[in-house]
């Protein structure tokens, strides 16, 4: 009974904090207007962090505070029963995990199925990418990076025919950048940590991820023009099939215009450096950890008070 009560209380706390934080993020992220001046790589990271923050914080709060406070501070001898509220909220939380897991499995299965069908009759290519590359038929999207553990790069016949070697090189580098930033894995994580009203934030992240990959793919104005030309050429090709869920396509983004105009006006400094922002992130993380360690005892006691209130 003690263990069951502990699980119910932990799940309840997770669920309550997840919902509250998600609502806050879903409606508050638009006010991050200041992000506009940061490099796209940083914007993409911050947007993804904001999207995953409710899940990460709730999980951390549950594992670091809720569960230990119950184990250490709850007297074991009492025959206290689980209240209706924590029981219902715990069930809601379990349902959330079940739905998240189903979404992940479904997304992964459907992506694998689509990629397998595209790979039927495909020809292996050697374009010098870290991921295996294939040439599929013309009906598939022009250039797609699919898969999480074993990513594969798929070119349509028409993309290979249309693009010049320089344009193709830049387009491939764009997809390799997605692979480097593990964008497909992030997409899968978003499938698990689902919440309504997050679609716009996810769209904004995806767009920023495209801009970041564009920046990573080009290093001078000529390459920027090559990538812009590739985008223009490939956006004229209307694919017959939509992209699978866990994949990144070169021309999938709705706001293609913004990307092209950025590339047309590309400057050495326009891509910015994301590296210096790591120097802000590391000390902040260390400061948070130190503060948490310093006030861990009192926080644990307060968390236990909250759980006591919840159980009643």
């Amino acid at each position, binding site marked *: 009974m003690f263990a069951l009560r502990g699980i119910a209380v932990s799940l309840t706390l997770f669920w309550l904090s997840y919902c509250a934080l998600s609502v806050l993020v879903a409606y508050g992220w638009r006010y991050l207007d200041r992000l506009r001046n940061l490099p796209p790589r940083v914007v993409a990271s911050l947007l993804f962090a904001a999207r995953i923050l409710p899940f990460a914080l709730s999980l951390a709060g549950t594992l670091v505070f809720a569960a230990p406070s119950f184990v250490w501070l709850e007297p074991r001898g009492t025959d206290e029963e689980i209240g209706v509220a924590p029981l219902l909220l715990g069930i809601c939380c379990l349902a959330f995990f079940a739905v998240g897991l189903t979404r992940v499995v479904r997304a992964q299965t459907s992506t694998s199925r689509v990629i397998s069908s595209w790979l039927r009759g495909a020809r292996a290519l050697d374009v010098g990418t870290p991921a295996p590359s294939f040439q599929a038929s013309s009906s598939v999207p022009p250039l797609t990076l699919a898969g999480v553990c074993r990513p594969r790069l798929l070119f349509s016949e028409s993309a290979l025919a249309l693009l010049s070697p320089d344009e193709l090189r830049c387009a491939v580098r764009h997809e390799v950048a997605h692979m480097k930033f593990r964008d497909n894995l992030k997409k899968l994580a978003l499938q698990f940590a689902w919440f309504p009203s997050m679609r*716009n934030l996810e769209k*904004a992240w995806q767009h920023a991820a495209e801009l970041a990959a564009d920046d990573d793919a080009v290093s001078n104005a000529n390459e920027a023009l090559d990538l812009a030309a590739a985008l223009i050429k490939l*956006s004229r090709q209307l694919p017959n099939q939509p992209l699978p869920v866990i994949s990144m396509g070169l021309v999938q983004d709705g706001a293609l215009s*913004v990307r092209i105009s950025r590339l047309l*006006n590309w400057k050495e400094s326009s891509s910015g450096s994301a590296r210096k922002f790591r120097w802000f992130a590391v000390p902040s993380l260390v400061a948070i950890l130190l503060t948490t360690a310093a006030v861990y005892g009192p926080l644990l006691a307060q968390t236990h008070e909250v759980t006591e209130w919840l159980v009643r």
Partner: protein
Amino acid sequence: MICKELHASSGPERPEAGKSASAFAKNQHISIDGRFGFWDNLGVLEIRVQKNIPFLSWIAGTQLGHLEQQVLREMWSRGNATVRELMETENIKLAYTTIMTTMDRLYKKRLLDRVVEGRAYRYFPRHTPDEMQRVAALEGIRQLLGSGETSSLPLSYLVEALSEHDAQLLDELQVLVERKRQELQKRGQS
């Protein structure tokens, strides 16, 4: 689809006040609420029918008269003004009370905001011309989509028009890329 920001050189840019105001004047019906900001330029514009949101909901079906449009245009170009300051501009030759009534009407329609300044009010436009133009365009599209007996027919017109528009824009962009390439080549040679 390629969106209208195609012509923007980099990042979000506000159109000229006068230009957008005249475009706005052609679209007098406003009945959709949109929240606008930096993220809208990333193709994340969130549009809701006003019935669901108290903000701007009263605008539904509102028409702006010639005088109201004129005052609104002047407010966009000035940024903020009192009735007396507006009276002193060359573009508006009207009596004090007429301007005051018009501005008050625009305030009540929530197109202007105001703060007390001495014994008068200082007015500010609540929305930029760009925002108003967007809202008007969205309403136009909404009306178009709701106009046919079968809902798919107007949508197919829209898709057709957008495809043509997209192709044209892509042609223009291709020309820009080629021009830029030539510029770079010339710069490299010199």
